[in-house]
């Protein structure tokens, strides 16, 4: 495959960026999108140019490191992570636009790499449980109803990649935060911090400069792990409940 790439290049956080055009040839349909970028970078290095910086780690779709907006879609046209996106999703001769996540809470570090530590700070403010130390408790010590376990697991699938924020026209982190809140709030292990968790995580989310939710649904469409849009309503319910409880 022969492709034309238009890639966002930005020297550092302060420098102005711009789209740069590159031609790549000899791309296999079986390559992942990141392998295609590796090919481009090898050519750039051989030509003495600066390679394109992009985040990647496991390349198995489970770590949440890769973060590219491809042709306007977070993680590209398939509902998966960029590393699991294959070049067979494109046609020979295509022009592909590659941009970084866009949100003021995710400042660009270099080229396609953004700083997602705002997510870490949201997690730090409430994404934990109180557990006694010592030997591990028996697996059946705390019964969890199956529907609750399923609900928790559905939300535990969130890998924190930030595609929800990238896709949201408001740069909102509501889907991410709701995944984390719902995951722990439904479980008996998460009950001691049930109220403070949702209040603190939403407050941190606001402080980090993420936008609000206008329920456009772009986040849930972009999410590679299929966190559903009603998760946001579930978190709103928890937030309202916590607000009433804490006042009392």
């Amino acid at each position, binding site marked *: 495959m022969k492709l034309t790439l238009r890639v966002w290049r930005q020297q550092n956080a302060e420098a102005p960026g711009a789209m740069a055009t590159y031609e790549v040839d000899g791309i296999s349909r079986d390559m992942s999108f990141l392998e295609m970028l590796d090919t481009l970078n090898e050519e750039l290095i051989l030509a003495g140019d600066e390679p394109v910086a992009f985040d990647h780690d496991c390349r198995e779709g489970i770590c949440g490191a890769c973060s590219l907006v491809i042709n306007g879609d977070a993680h590209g046209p398939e509902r998966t992570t960029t590393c699991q996106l294959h070049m067979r999703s494109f046609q020979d001769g295509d022009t592909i636009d590659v941009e970084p996540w866009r949100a*003021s809470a995710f400042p660009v570090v270099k080229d396609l790499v953004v700083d997602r530590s705002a997510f870490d700070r949201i997690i730090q403010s409430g994404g934990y449980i109180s557990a006694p130390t010592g030997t591990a408790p028996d697996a059946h010590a705390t019964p969890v109803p199956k529907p609750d376990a399923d609900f928790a697991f559905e939300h535990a699938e969130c890998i924190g990649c930030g595609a929800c924020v990238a896709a949201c026209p408001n740069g909102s982190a509501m889907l991410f935060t709701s995944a984390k809140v719902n995951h722990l709030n439904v479980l008996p292990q998460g009950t001691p911090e049930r109220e403070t968790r949702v209040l603190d995580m939403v407050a941190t989310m606001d402080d980090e400069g993420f936008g609000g939710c206008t329920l456009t649904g772009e986040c849930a469409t972009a999410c590679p792990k299929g966190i559903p849009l009603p998760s946001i309503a579930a978190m709103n319910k928890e937030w309202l409940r916590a607000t009433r409880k804490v006042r009392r």
Partner: protein
Amino acid sequence: MTRTLWDSSVGKKTIMAVSGLIMLGYLVAHMVGNLKIFFGPGEFDRYAHWLRTMGDPVLHYSWGLWLVRVVLVAAVVLHGVSAYQLSRRDIKARPAKYVHTKPRASYATRTMRWGGVILALFIVWHILDLTTGTVHSGGFQEGHPYQNVVDTFSTWYGNVIYIVAVLAMGLHVQHGFWSAAQTLGVGNATRDRVLKTLANLLAAVLTLGFVSVPVAVMTGVVS
């Protein structure tokens, strides 16, 4: 870290949802009241008069109406200020646009902000036209709403302004009702279809109900 509703983005959305639902409840009552115009001037004008005497003898003349007005003004102001502040926050959170963009969210979703502005401007015109009579076409007669309504919808601009605003209202309600349900935590996966259907139904019934009045005047059914 407890915060008031006003300090949190989720809290401010709650204020928007509740104030929006108050206005929606009013719209339903207003639309049903408007339909009385099809029973002739006697019944319509008597209904308008009742709005001033409702609650009698507990309430003094027009106290009930003023009570409703105060609640509505509070709802409009809270809704508008919250919307403005949340929109500012949203725009600030996403300063850089993507080079590669495509239209996504539904038309109703994308037009919430400007649709809301249109509605706010319409409310001002609507009150000046049919409550105070300041910008009314022809002689405004206090206590004769039937004739005033016919006068307004006998002008082309009266019809255009009204119908555009009603269509904007329908779109606003369609996304707004469903969104309010999500904000208040009522929405979930199993209820989603019911809530969406209810939102569409409310939007359709309100739009048709309101539009029926200018259409009836234009076609001569009401004159």
